[in-house]
């Protein structure tokens, strides 16, 4: 390949860019996006990403249903979301263009592989005319590059079929993007060596594709500007990029170490939770035990059995699996053993939208069991926050001897952001104190402060006892059908969970402590709400943001915070579940903003809704 100095193009500095890579689900768009993300992260940008992939592993090639996307937003300031509208769309085929073009910012850039805009591919995507030539994209900057042809040329002479060679065209596109944003190819070249080192031809093909894309940017004159996004000012420390599922898994491992007990993670494959099982199953040399159960019920049963034996028993699932686990969760409430149930929420009801995000399982988490069956519910707010909230969930489970439901969602699970690797010394001590062996043992004698019962595990001499799902006699723990005892035990179980409110961080407010509008969120809406509130505040609006990480019980000051604002807006990716609870518990006339589309809120949507409410004041 000839090397040239490249044409001289002006460089423009930007504080934030959002790129969406889209193609067939077999085009390697997730990988392309991940490589761009790693490069941006290592460079020092703050980042946030969101993959968007279809439920079908390989929908018909070229069809709209088979389009897979990956969006990254990176910047020199704080990045809270993967971005509303992409500035740049990389579309590897007509279907990817058609499925994504409407999301692009006006005037945004489109980079397409023009080789595949054939009549048959256009027909599959539902285009009557070629959009590259019919003028329909005139409001965008379109860069039509014959990627397949150029890539095939770059790989000429390698011992591979043209079909195999074509599989690397995503790296050609990646190379173009690296050039456009002045990024080093080094991290990806290293990755290629790690991944394909043992298959030199494949490694060489990917290297050539990447470099050819970069060189294309440099030598051709179709791009008139390059862009640079300076590094962000993150707090000092060592960082890595994590998905929510990775952070959740790491949080569980760390919690087990902080408690000095083994971790047993038991799960049944389900999207989008399976990656937690995959990840933990690679930690065998850390003593982590994983169990792929025969079904969702067995998964939580084995987790509870492990907790009964003194381990940290955890299970992970998504909504449909959560429905199956409900009865065992009720048993865990009755036998008062620590247990973590991770629900990575997805679109419902039923099978719903398996790969899309939603916040529709809040009612299920809080109320979805028979009987008076209270348990704590927590929700992380961002991918990196999953780590801290997993540790927090375990802190509560172990201190209060209770199952805890941890509500993540597909957006958090698959999205990424930089995570500052914590100093273990700053994390809470999760040791469960041994009970005083000199005192008499009763299975349901409670700690005066926490109301937790003692965790006396099989193998403890002299304390043989029986537990189970039947109502227990207060203190003694034997079976009791007594009416007054049942009432007392119901109150005790409720009180135990209620007392956690005094033991969790108060609800923090971002912005003035009182004002015209409070936007209250929970879970993955954090980034969009925070960004919207930042913009509103910058325009002088009296708007604040409060984000609930504890949904049962609520932080003790929640009512006071809610009553300090003229209006309370609750954006949720459901039809108003938190809002309903807020209204019931605090008699605050909260206003809902609810979009159930299987995708996160855009910043602009929340901003516009807030403006509308402020305008009505």
């Amino acid at each position, binding site marked *: 390949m000839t090397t040239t100095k490249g044409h001289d193009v002006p460089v423009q500095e930007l504080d934030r860019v959002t790129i969406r890579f889209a193609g067939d689900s077999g085009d390697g768009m997730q990988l392309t996006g991940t490589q761009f993300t790693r490069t941006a992260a290592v460079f020092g940008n703050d980042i946030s990403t969101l993959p968007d992939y279809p439920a079908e592993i390989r929908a018909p090639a070229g069809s709209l249903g088979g389009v897979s996307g990956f969006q990254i937003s990176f910047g020199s300031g704080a990045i809270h979301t993967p971005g509303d509208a992409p500035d740049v769309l990389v579309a590897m085929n007509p279907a990817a263009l058609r499925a994504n073009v409407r999301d692009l910012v006006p005037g945004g850039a489109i980079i397409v592989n023009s080789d595949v805009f054939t009549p048959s591919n256009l027909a599959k995507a539902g285009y009557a005319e070629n959009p590259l030539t019919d003028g329909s994209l005139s409001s965008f900057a379109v860069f039509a590059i014959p990627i397949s042809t150029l890539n095939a040329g770059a790989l000429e002479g390698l011992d591979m079929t043209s079909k195999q060679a074509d599989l690397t065209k995503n790296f050609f596109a990646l190379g173009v993007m690296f050039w456009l944003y002045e990024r080093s190819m080094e991290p990806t070249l290293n990755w290629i060596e790690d991944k394909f080192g043992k298959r030199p031809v494949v490694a060489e093909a990917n290297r050539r594709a990447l470099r050819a894309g970069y060189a294309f940017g440099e030598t051709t004159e179709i791009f008139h500007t390059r862009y640079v996004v300076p590094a962000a000012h993150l707090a000092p420390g060592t960082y890595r990029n994590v998905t929510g599922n990775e952070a959740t898994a*790491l949080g569980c491992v760390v919690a087990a*170490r902080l408690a000095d007990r083994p971790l047993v993670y038991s799960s049944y494959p389900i999207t989008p939770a399976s990656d937690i099982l995959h990840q933990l199953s690679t930690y065998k040399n850390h003593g982590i035990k994983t169990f792929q159960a025969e079904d969702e019920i067995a998964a939580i049963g*084995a987790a509870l059995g492990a907790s009964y034996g003194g381990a940290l028993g955890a299970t992970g699932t998504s909504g449909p699996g959560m429905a199956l686990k409900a009865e065992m969760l009720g048993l865990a409430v009755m036998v008062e053993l620590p247990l973590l149930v991770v629900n990575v929420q997805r679109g419902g009801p039923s099978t719903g939208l398996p790969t899309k995000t939603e916040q529709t399982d809040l009612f299920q988490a809080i109320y979805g069991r028979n009987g008076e069956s209270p348990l704590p519910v927590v929700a992380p707010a961002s991918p990196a926050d999953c780590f801290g909230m997993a540790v927090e969930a375990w802190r509560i489970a172990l201190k209060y001897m209770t199952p805890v439901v941890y509500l993540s969602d597909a957006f958090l699970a698959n999205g990424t952001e930089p995570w500052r690797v914590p100093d*273990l010394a700053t994390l809470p001590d999760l040791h469960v104190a041994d009970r005083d062996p000199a005192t008499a043992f009763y299975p349901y004698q409670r700690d005066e402060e926490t109301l937790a019962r003692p965790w006396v595990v099989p193998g403890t*001499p002299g304390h*043989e006892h*029986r*537990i*189970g*799902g039947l109502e227990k006699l207060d203190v003694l723990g034997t079976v009791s059908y007594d009416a007054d005892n049942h009432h007392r035990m119901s109150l005790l179980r409720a009180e135990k969970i209620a007392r956690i409110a005094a033991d969790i961080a108060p609800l923090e407010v971002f912005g003035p402590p009182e004002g015209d509008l409070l936007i209250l969120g929970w879970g993955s809406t954090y980034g969009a709400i925070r960004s919207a509130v930042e913009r509103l505040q910058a325009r002088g609006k009296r708007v604040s943001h409060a984000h609930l990480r504890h949904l049962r019980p609520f932080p003790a000051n929640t009512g006071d915070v809610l009553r300090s604002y003229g209006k309370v807006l609750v954006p949720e990716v459901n039809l108003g579940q938190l809002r309903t609870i807020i209204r019931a518990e605090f008699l605050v006339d909260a206003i809902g903003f609810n979009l159930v589309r299987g995708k996160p809120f855009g910043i602009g949507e929340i901003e516009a809704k807030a403006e509308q409410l402020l305008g009505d004041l």
Partner: protein
Amino acid sequence: MTEPTATAAAPVKLTRKDFAIEDPKWCPGCGDYSILAQTQKVMPDFGIPKENIVFISGIGCSGRFPYYMNTYGFHSIHGRAPTIATGLKLARPELMVWVITGDGDALSIGGNHILHAMRKNVDIKVVMFNNRIYGLTKGQASPTSEVGQKTKSTPIGSIDYPIRPLMIALAAEASFVARTVDTHIDHIQKVVEQAGRHRGSAFVEVLQNCNIFNDGAHRAFTDREVRDDRMLVLEHGKPMIFGKSRDMGLRLNGLHPEIVRIGEAGITEADLLVHDETSEDPTIHNMLARIYWPEFPVPIGVIRNVQRPTHDELVEAQIGEAVTRQGKGELVDLLGGGETWTVA
């Protein structure tokens, strides 16, 4: 955490009384009393401290069993005891874990769990009380009820073909499969003890009488007067002989089992099938699990008893290998692993 071992160095001398705790609350005359008494009697023989023994049950009359054993016990939910037992065994391989279940609990609502606990060779001992009826819910047809059986839920007779429990256990590759009868006191003791000593998944069907809702379900072949002629007591390495006068036997005619009389038509003991509970080939075990009164005598005893690594052993082995290969994992490496960058 305490780290006890099931097989303590110094054998513990316990008696049946050490394992009794409260008076059972089953119906007077229930077959469960006998199973409980014989289990309590056998327990001291294992030499295991009782704190290292756990009984886990599901729902049904059998589900109350753990309350009457002075060991650790967990009365869980319908059909799910094997799942809890599996998790417990995963966390604490050194414990001796029993699962007490019934025909409805194990084969209907919990059918899936039985299959998988067995096929994974989880080191648990499943004792299934088979009374061919739902007793605790007062008399509905169970998965082992007979065709035509009149119950509260099948007033003009059940139309469902019954499950043969031991066929399920064999199909799931349980490494120990046995059958016994509530009224055969010595036999239960022997079978329970063998199950307890087996390493791996054990499945024991106890033919148990519910004298309230399905009285006499097994009487046709278990009654004292007829049992010798109508049941085949299996013994490893011995020919399959039965009958009051020990003159009846089982042999293979081609691929089919056949009852023959020793001494008639030149038949001798040498013509009979010899029971081999350790045979890897399950053909004869399948046959024994399938034949039943009135066509054949009902086989009781250990049908299959083979060795293969248990689930917990395999889990521990993988962890051990990973530590050998990669070194014992350090948390700092795990957290700071992958691609990191430093912000000063």
